């Protein structure tokens, strides 16, 4: 489809694996540029969901019958897949949650209750999503710990010198995102982790935005915890992952009580299951977890390097075209960026832009993107955010820019 593309991936073939893209919205071909909020689901994932609900549905673990066995195998196969996908040392270090938000909350509640105490410092950055702010605020309230914010520059990059100054023996935890959801900044997480480790601080990486774009290797990063969400990786909603280092997970108290997470229960006391099951109380999102495996297959079949090269090409192309639009102001101009463009256009409110683009079949996100402290720092109410996935094309960017141009002309 994209003749002018220089990378080697077959976009027409990729698009054919996303039937949802082949439709009209408001009478115009759908252009889906809201991938940072949630990416579309690849057909192999949808097929796996149908297979599960039509043929294999049963509750996992402890079942003696055939369907329970099939479901359990599928579920554990995805755990195995995640273990390879992020290169954890052990498969037991992979915990399924309902999303990145729950993964972070699990750490904040369980690890936080055991390891945080009064006066301890939690470092988070100015770039964080509310889901990597609020759980720490709650943990700080419960424990008397203090939150300190790592500042950023006007381009949306973490100020490493300021970070170094904030680090001390009081630092108990450093929690930062790998890629900023609002601005697309790719943070130097390896260096951030290394510096934190020198202070014996625990590290938590929110990789929700990174997972679809960047190859994640938790052993190479050397982080203690890392969280990601399936629905931003062409997979189903309601599935997230928490990676945690074995010794830490083992030392942490359970997050929720219920079935699955126990060894023995009596009214005199309960003993808990081993990791990862200790943190997986109740019936999980079985079918969705099973199907998530196919999303990771999809990403790795194309290859992270190819995806990143292609998305960078889209980003560069969009930046050049958008900069020609009168009144265009990019928000977040970091040197190292994922395929996210946040912007404002003089005289046009983001909500108006979002709605007028929707009429033209173009889906973008408008508002504060769950990063109000970042918006406060930038002294704006919100932005328009276009975020690209591997199935987007330069032709779509052309239509997007032409549509924006027309809207801008109407307002001027």
């Amino acid at each position, binding site marked *: 489809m994209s003749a002018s593309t220089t990378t080697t991936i077959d976009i027409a073939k990729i698009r054919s694996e996303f039937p949802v893209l082949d439709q009209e919205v408001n009478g115009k071909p759908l252009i889906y540029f809201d991938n940072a909020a949630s990416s579309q689901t690849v057909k192999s994932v949808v097929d796996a969901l149908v297979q599960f609900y039509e043929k294999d549905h049963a509750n996992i673990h402890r079942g003696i019958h055939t369907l329970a066995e099939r479901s359990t195998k599928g579920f554990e196969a995805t755990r195995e897949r995640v273990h390879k996908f992020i290169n954890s040392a052990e498969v037991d270090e992979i915990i399924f949650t309902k999303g990145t938000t729950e993964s972070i909350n699990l750490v904040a509640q369980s690890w936080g209750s055991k390891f945080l105490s009064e006066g301890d410092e939690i470092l988070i950055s100015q770039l964080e999503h509310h889901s990597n702010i609020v759980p720490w605020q709650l943990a700080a309230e419960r424990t008397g710990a203090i939150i300190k914010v790592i500042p950023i520059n006007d381009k949306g990059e973490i100020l490493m010198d300021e970070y170094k100054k904030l680090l001390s023996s009081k630092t108990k935890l450093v929690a930062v995102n790998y890629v900023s959801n609002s601005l697309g900044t790719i943070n130097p997480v390896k260096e951030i982790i290394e510096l934190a480790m020198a202070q014996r601080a625990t590290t938590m990486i929110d990789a929700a935005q990174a997972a679809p774009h960047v190859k994640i290797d938790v052993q190479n990063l050397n982080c203690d915890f890392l969280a990601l969400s399936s629905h931003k990786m062409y997979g189903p909603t309601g599935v997230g992952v928490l990676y945690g280092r074995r010794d830490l997970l083992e030392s942490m108290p359970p997050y929720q009580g219920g079935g699955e997470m126990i060894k023995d229960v009596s009214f005199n006391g309960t003993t808990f299951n081993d990791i990862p099951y200790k943190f997986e109380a109740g019936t999980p999102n079985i079918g969705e977890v099973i199907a998530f495996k196919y999303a990771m297959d999809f990403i790795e079949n194309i290859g992270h390097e190819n995806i990143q090269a292609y998305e960078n090409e889209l980003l560069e192309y969009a930046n050049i075209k958008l900069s020609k639009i009168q009144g265009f102001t990019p928000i977040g101009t970091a040197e190292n960026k994922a395929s996210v463009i946040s912007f404002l256009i003089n005289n*046009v*409110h983001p*909500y*108006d832009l979002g*709605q*007028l683009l929707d*009429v*033209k079949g173009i889906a973008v996100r408008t508002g504060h993107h769950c990063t109000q402290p970042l918006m406060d720092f930038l002294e704006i109410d919100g932005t328009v955010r276009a975020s690209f996935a591997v199935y987007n094309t330069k032709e779509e960017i052309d239509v997007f820019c032409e549509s924006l141009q027309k809207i801008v002309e109407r*307002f001027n």
Partner: protein
Amino acid sequence: MDLIKQRQEEIIEEFAMLDGDMEMTLDYIMELGAELAELPDEARIEDNIVKGCQSKVWLTAELDNDRVQFKADSNTAITKGLVSLLVRTLNQSAPQDVVNAEIYFPQQIGMDRFIGTQRSNGFAAMIKQMKMYALALTAKQES
């Protein structure tokens, strides 16, 4: 036909001419917003902001010869157009008539089709606020 009903019928007729075309409809709404009487700067205060709207909407009401005089503004063009429809419908009526008014034009023009759930909630909040103002003005009249 009472004034409020008559104005709603006018709106329904105007929108019918747009034939359900989303682009033209939004364009028309923004045009109507641009024609809205200007809200004085001193009225653009926190107290006059309608709660429950994602965009900022300022709304004021006062009595002029026993009729309610609404003024409004918004920081977004589409919302300004939407509030202008309400101002047009309810302006210059007796406060009690505003309180009792049945606002039916949004359903008739299929407004939920061209504004999302969030804006629909905001629109309901505007109507509620206008009725609250009118109720307060009724009390003022009685005293």
